[in-house]
């Protein structure tokens, strides 16, 4: 008699070790499973397609479009055409080329901010939730204070105090979202530390720090991971908003918020394409993250 299954195929299918696909009947073929998944999760699917398009654009787009900084005085403010899909701006720069280069910058920054904020926030959250007591009290008081500012204002004052550079923008916006992740992870850690596996780990002689980070933390990350998609979108929005106010990323850098800020005054004279196109890219990109994130929060969190 064997106590443990000797190989993966011996495991009973209802074992907790085998991931269960609740959404998809198993007898369907793979392409059909995909179609059925898309049908039951239309928002997620649309978001995924949009996001893939943006990731593709950010990854290979810059190789196919021209220099985002090249000016051309003979082509100032030419409207959208086959040569210049999004037209040209007041220096004759190609708006499409700039928007594509900006996609790479904005998505990368958004992703880095979300990862940094989640890593710091969930670590602190687990410490607060698992150890409780005075540590928890202090951390949560501080979190309450930080949450009393709108995230945008917090990021704004940190960039203003730190001086403007790309790194400081990342630090400031990440700092604005850390309290959010602390809250989420702490709440889950409070639930997880009462589970039997945590008791078992303690009885097996693990140190509290090891239990907190090796046992409780991996199980407490789910809400934070799900929210990370939403935060990535918000981070892109915040960075672009700051750049629009000319805080943080500065012209002539090809960045969506910078482009909208530079083009905003052109609206009055009728050149709508210099600001509305890059702004539309921001909204589409953030929507991609939010379609996915909204679906995940509804179904998985």
């Amino acid at each position, binding site marked *: 008699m064997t106590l443990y299954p000797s190989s993966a195929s011996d495991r009973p299918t209802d074992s907790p070790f085998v991931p269960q696909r609740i959404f998809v009947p198993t007898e369907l073929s793979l392409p059909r499973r995909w179609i059925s998944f898309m049908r039951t999760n*239309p*928002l997620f699917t649309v978001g995924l397609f949009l996001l893939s398009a943006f990731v593709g654009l950010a990854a290979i787009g810059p190789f196919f479009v021209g220099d985002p900084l090249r000016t051309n005085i003979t082509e100032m403010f030419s409207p959208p055409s086959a040569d210049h899909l999004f037209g040209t701006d007041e220096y004759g720069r190609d708006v499409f080329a700039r928007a594509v280069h900006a996609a790479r910058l904005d998505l990368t920054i958004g992703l880095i901010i979300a990862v940094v904020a989640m890593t710091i926030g969930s670590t602190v959250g687990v410490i607060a939730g698992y150890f409780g007591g005075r540590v928890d009290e202090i951390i949560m*008081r*501080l979190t*309450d*204070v*930080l949450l*009393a*500012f*709108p995230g*945008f*204002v917090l990021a*704004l*004052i*940190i960039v*203003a*105090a*730190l*001086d403007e550079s790309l790194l400081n923008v990342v630090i400031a916006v990440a700092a604005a979202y850390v309290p959010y992740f602390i809250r989420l992870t702490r709440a889950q850690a409070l639930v997880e530390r009462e589970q039997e596996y945590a008791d078992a780990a303690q009885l097996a002689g693990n140190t509290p720090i090891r239990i907190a980070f090796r046992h409780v933390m991996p199980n407490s990350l789910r809400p934070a991971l799900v929210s990370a998609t939403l935060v990535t*979108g918000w981070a892109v*929005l915040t960075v*672009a*908003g700051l750049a*629009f*106010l*000319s*805080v943080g990323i500065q012209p002539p850098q090809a960045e969506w*918020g910078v482009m*909208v800020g530079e083009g*905003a005054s052109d*609206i*009055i004279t*009728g050149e*709508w394409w210099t*600001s*509305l196109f890059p*702004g*539309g890219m*921001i*909204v589409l990109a*953030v*929507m991609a*993250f*939010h*379609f996915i994130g*909204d679906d995940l929060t509804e179904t998985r969190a």
Partner: protein
Amino acid sequence: MRKYLLKRVATSLLTILGIVVVVFFIVRVLPGDAAAVRAGPYANQELIDRIADKYGLNDPLHIQFVDYVGGVAQGDLGISIRTNQNVTTELLDRLPASLELALYSVILATAVGVSLGVLSAHWQNTWIDRLLRIFAVIGSAMALFWLGLLLTFFFAFKWGWFPGPVDRLAVGSEYPRTVTGFYTIDGILTGKPSITVEAFRYLALPVMALAFVLAAPILKMVRSAMIEALESDFVRTAKAVGVPQTRILFVDGFRNALIPITTTIGIVFGFMLGGNILVEFLFSWPGIGRYAFDAITTRDLEALQGFVVLVGVMYVFLNMVIDITYAIIDPRIRLGSGLTK
């Protein structure tokens, strides 16, 4: 009740103190020479030293801190470096403009969010519900400054329905005598309804942009709170004894969903108090957000610090008022705190 009140006020004061501490340390302790920043990029060492002396930046940090907290406690947020005026006075002068914008935006967002949320809950899992969900996601993903530009382009420049983004009233027009600071109300109070109409026309575009973004979280919260209320036992009983549909929806459902809905509206309003820098900048709105923007571009950290403290204090105060209102309305809350002592 008195115990609950005292406790709530005490925690609010603590949070406000926390806000002052955090802002103070962000501005003064983070790397970067405050005096050099104030003096500007072209200053020489002598000027930097003079500025450091004048604003007490050479004092030990704890003395600077005690000075600042002492000032804030008396309502003094310091002197603006840009204008040499008292920051508190300058902020209070601009506050009515921001509050008027915030108030109408929240009213419109609430009207839209609540009615769409009720619809969404009533027709749960139908195409209406799905459509409204997409609307909510788009609202939460919307770039406020882009939406503002879009509205300006179409409604102001292309079709000319509303005035362009210049100010609260047309340049050179008559301003109402200040009673409340809200031009829409002051116009009526001082017997000049034409000013009220004009003020509403200038409010229209920024309010629309803000309300679109703010309606999304309200819609979501109303939907989930309504669904929860509609699935409760008392609604099932009401249905069983034959209470009419609309009565169930609005009396049994909506009334019981009111507390989470009010909380969300409170949060949204709090967000509005500080989150409107983008809109005020875009629409040249002379409020505190615009003031904060000017402070940033001129490196006026004292004024920026004052803005953030004011926003934080208003937010904490708002939450306190909401919580106390609940305790008055809902005995479960105040008794709950009484039982645990």
